């Protein structure tokens, strides 16, 4: 802070600090506090707001705990997000390693460009592309039928569709942190491991993965949070059997007309995400500041 004032002088330094404070207060603190406030109050007709019955309680959260369908969807969202995270990690790690240690600069540029271009368009449109690909009479079924892998079209919408759409949507959030981490690994360490007779698996398990742990944890945290909070992919690529917790929250707000219960559900999801982040970082022994970098 002293550095800020020294560099920009009193006036400009104060302005910067004020802007950051306003941003934090207005864009981060206020909405979250409002959400907590809503979550803890009952849903009342306008006339009764501020009246006798308008008291804080945990009723909205307890409602979720006692509603077996919503509870099941909540836990399903948790483990399905974990699965999305795991699949994205499995897909991204080899690509990141190849890009960071094996590819020539030319190859790396082409592949990174190819991976980035789809992200120039909106997430809804990207998911819509998967909607078309996975359609019952769509290109994927047609291709598989021609090759002869399947005898009749498969209904991809549902769990598989959601998994595919999300894995695709979050690849870059997983790829770049891991890529950055692996890129900083001195290549002679890989050569030394090989020279000492280590197999490919052992080299990765003992050298590359420990080195890139912070990047892997960062990618996993990003992907998990995005997956748990995702709305477009489950809405477009899901089926009634693959409902996501965010869809329930949406329904409370815009169809059920119960903002308080919606806010309570959103709060539970937020707390869950925070818990996952902290536990993951603890397990990987990574600091929050490393992730921020």
């Amino acid at each position, binding site marked *: 802070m002293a550095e800020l004032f020294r560099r920009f002088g009193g006036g400009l330094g104060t302005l910067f600090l004020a802007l950051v404070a306003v941003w934090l207060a207005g864009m981060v603190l206020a909405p979250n506090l409002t959400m907590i406030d809503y979550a803890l109050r009952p849903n009342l007709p306008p006339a009764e707001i501020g009246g006798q019955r308008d008291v804080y309680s945990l009723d909205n959260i307890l409602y979720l705990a006692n509603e077996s369908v919503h509870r099941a969807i909540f836990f399903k969202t948790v483990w399905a997000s974990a699965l999305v995270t795991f699949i994205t990690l499995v897909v991204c790690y080899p690509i990141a390693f190849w890009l960071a240690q094996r590819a020539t600069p030319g190859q790396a540029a082409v592949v990174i460009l190819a991976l980035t271009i789809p992200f120039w368009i909106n997430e809804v449109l990207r998911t819509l592309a998967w909607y078309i690909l996975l359609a019952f009479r769509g290109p994927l079924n047609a291709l598989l039928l021609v090759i002869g892998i399947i005898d009749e079209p498969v209904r991809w919408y549902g769990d598989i569709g959601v998994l595919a759409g999300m894995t695709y949507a979050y690849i870059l959030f997983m790829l770049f942190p891991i890529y950055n981490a692996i890129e900083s690994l001195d290549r002679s*360490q890989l*050569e030394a*491991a090989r020279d*000492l007779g280590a197999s490919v698996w052992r080299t990765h398990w*003992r050298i590359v993965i420990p080195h890139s742990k912070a990047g892997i944890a960062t990618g996993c945290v990003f992907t998990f949070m995005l997956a748990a909070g995702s709305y477009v992919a489950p809405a477009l690529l899901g089926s009634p059997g693959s409902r996501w917790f965010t869809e329930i929250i949406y329904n409370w707000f815009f169809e059920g007309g119960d903002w308080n219960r919606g806010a309570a559900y959103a709060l539970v999801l937020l707390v869950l995400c925070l818990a996952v982040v902290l536990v993951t970082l603890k397990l990987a022994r990574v600091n929050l500041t490393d992730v921020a970098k």
Partner: protein
Amino acid sequence: MSHSVELQNVGMAFGQTRAVSNVSFTVEGGEFFSILGPSGCGKTTILRMIAGFLEPTEGRILIGGRDMRGLGPDRRPTAMIFQSLALFPLMPVWENIAFGLEARGVSKAERRKKAEELLKLVALEGYGDRMPGELSGGQRQRVAIARALAVEPQVLLLDEPLSALDLKLRQHMRAELRALQKRTGVTFIYITHDQSEALAMSDRVAVMSEGVLQQVGAPRELYDNPVTPFVARFVGETNVVEGRIAAVENGITSVDTAYGPLRGRAVANLAPGMPARLYVRPEALEHKGQGANKLTATIERIDFEGAFALAHGRLEDGRPLIASIPSTELNQAPAVGARVSFVFREANAVVLPDG
């Protein structure tokens, strides 16, 4: 006896760029062998070909008489010590040392025991549980050596491992490396651009320039009998005088130069009339002597180097001349600005064809 390493007409090209051309030499088992040359001369390429990180585009490499073609670094009886050392920073020292054994499926108790033995060998007892980052440069160096020796290689390949150390420590590690090599009997192939390092440590040295092998020989032989102009100039300091061969007899050549006729030993085949150069070391020049083999220079400055001083002078036509004066004789040294005649014995000068 450790394995020998034999290079037969080995060449390496990276696309259009030629890194190594037609190199052949044999390193005997148990020998301390250095490859010396300026950066970019192809010495690291040769080392990486022996280690198996690169496959030569021509020729073959035999280790212990066995052709190594197609064998990766993990399947050769070699271990490499990298310029950066490449210690694994997230493993304690003992796990670093035992990594090769871990890869071979040795039990943990056995690995720990072997690591302790090796730590003792490199005088680092009690350091097993430290992390590499907690060690000094010299200690890290020794851990790298212990890690390479743990897999009981026949041949140890060292890629300028001392270049990051300061001078005192480097001199100390030279002696240690040399002693370790004698004690273990492992064949050492040592890459360096530092000629004093190569001369001090090696049984034999190969000198490389621009991918071409210039000469292989014992340090004294390279110093006293260079066979190419590159070796004459690169190994040690030297003075060069251009001229034309006047006569050759009994291995002594007379060269006509701008400073009169000078005589030196003929190392290569020479014939009268050929353009040639005479090379004479700074320590072969005497400013007090008398004789016909004489170069006259004006002293410009005298640099005190410790054990000796280097007198920098200019010959009549302005070309530089360097003569060394032992520090014990500095009080009789010529004054700056004086014109001094330096004489040398014909046995202490070498004449090579020009080129």
